[in-house]
């Protein structure tokens, strides 16, 4: 076998092996998207109920709660970045990190200090490679998030939010995560978690009597109890969205990798056939040439 042919054959072989891996990952992700999506759908009633309740308290009562009111000077902002643990998911993690960087840039231009909370091994790797500090980080389980992690994150950020500036407290909390829009589209999203921005506040109709909410025991206690739950559920929702988006991104990336491997295999097979053919042609002409030489020598 000629040298050129051997080179082509080994290239085909390696493309085939790669294709096997990418194909398997594509199938695994495809089967997990469904599950991740169901989990997002299952938690939606919970977060919707909480959001509605929180906006009800914030709209219909005039309690000055530290978590709902914007502080006079906003010095420090926290950004919670949700990436994945593993790569091979296309631009999934890098687009989130890019989004977080531009948010940090914006906050810095407003004169705020930025503190990072990282979720996922990719974000941690990105920060440690650049030797940058983060307040806290969580790794593991980004593709199948559990509520306990969400609670840990929520506790950490709420605690930092309640601290004073001198003790390393923060005045704002932002979440940056991938929202799962569809199988082919995941959009990086930035949400300001605290202080509250009630977006779902339903406007009371003008001709109706302003509904007077009764709070038990009282509005402040209700808010105190509700807000940590609200933060938890928002963070958990972000994690689930991000997990579903991760699977979708990985499926897409692996699908195009498999397609590329197919193309490579096809091209190299043609080249290998070509090489084999020309090798045979050469051998024939050598034999014919040799026979001719022997015949004329007689």
């Amino acid at each position, binding site marked *: 076998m000629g040298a050129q042919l051997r080179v082509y054959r080994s290239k085909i072989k390696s493309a085939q092996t790669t294709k096997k891996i990418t194909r398997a990952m594509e199938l695994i992700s495809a089967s997990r998207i469904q599950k991740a999506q169901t989990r997002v759908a299952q*938690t939606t009633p*919970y977060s919707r109920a909480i959001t509605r309740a929180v906006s*009800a308290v914030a709209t219909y009562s005039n309690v000055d709660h530290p978590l709902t009111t914007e502080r006079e000077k906003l010095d420090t902002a926290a950004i919670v970045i949700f990436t994945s643990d593993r790569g091979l998911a296309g631009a999934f993690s890098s687009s989130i990190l890019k989004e977080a960087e531009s948010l940090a840039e914006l906050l810095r231009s407003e004169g705020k200090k930025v503190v990072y909370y990282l979720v996922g091994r990719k974000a941690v790797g990105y920060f440690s490679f650049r030797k940058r500090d983060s307040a806290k980080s969580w790794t593991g389980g980004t593709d199948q998030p559990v509520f306990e992690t969400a609670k840990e994150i929520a506790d950490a950020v709420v605690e930092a939010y309640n601290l004073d500036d001198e003790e390393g407290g923060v005045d704002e909390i932002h979440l940056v995560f991938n929202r799962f829009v569809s199988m082919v589209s995941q959009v990086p999203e930035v949400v300001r978690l605290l202080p509250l921005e009630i977006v779902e506040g339903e406007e009371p109709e003008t001709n109706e009597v302003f509904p007077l909410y009764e*709070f*038990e*025991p009282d509005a402040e206690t209700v808010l105190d109890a509700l807000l940590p739950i609200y933060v938890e559920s928002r963070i958990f929702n972000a994690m689930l969205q991000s997990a579903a988006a991760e699977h979708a991104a990985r499926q897409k990336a692996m699908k195009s990798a498999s397609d590329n491997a197919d193309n490579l295999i096809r091209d190299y097979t043609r080249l290998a056939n070509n090489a084999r053919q020309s090798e045979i042609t050469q051998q024939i002409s050598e034999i014919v040439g040799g026979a001719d030489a022997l015949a004329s020598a007689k």
Partner: protein
Amino acid sequence: MASPLTVSVVSADQEIWSGEASMVIAKTVEGEIGILAGHEPMLAILASGEVRVNATGGERIVARADDGFLSVDNDVVTIVARDAELVK
């Protein structure tokens, strides 16, 4: 008779029960409360314990709820708890 209450019982990872009911009895931090149709809007913190729902069909649903709250608005009752499960 007033229109029935629309009730949903929701936990952190799923909706446990939803449907129409004539009465909801829950235990808040201040004590037991019974909610009938036409109740004023209310938000209450639940004490851990049982929530009983008398469905319009005559069934009685009992759920255990921890760490949650109850909201009533326009005859829509939502019981939200981080951990909740149907007892029967």
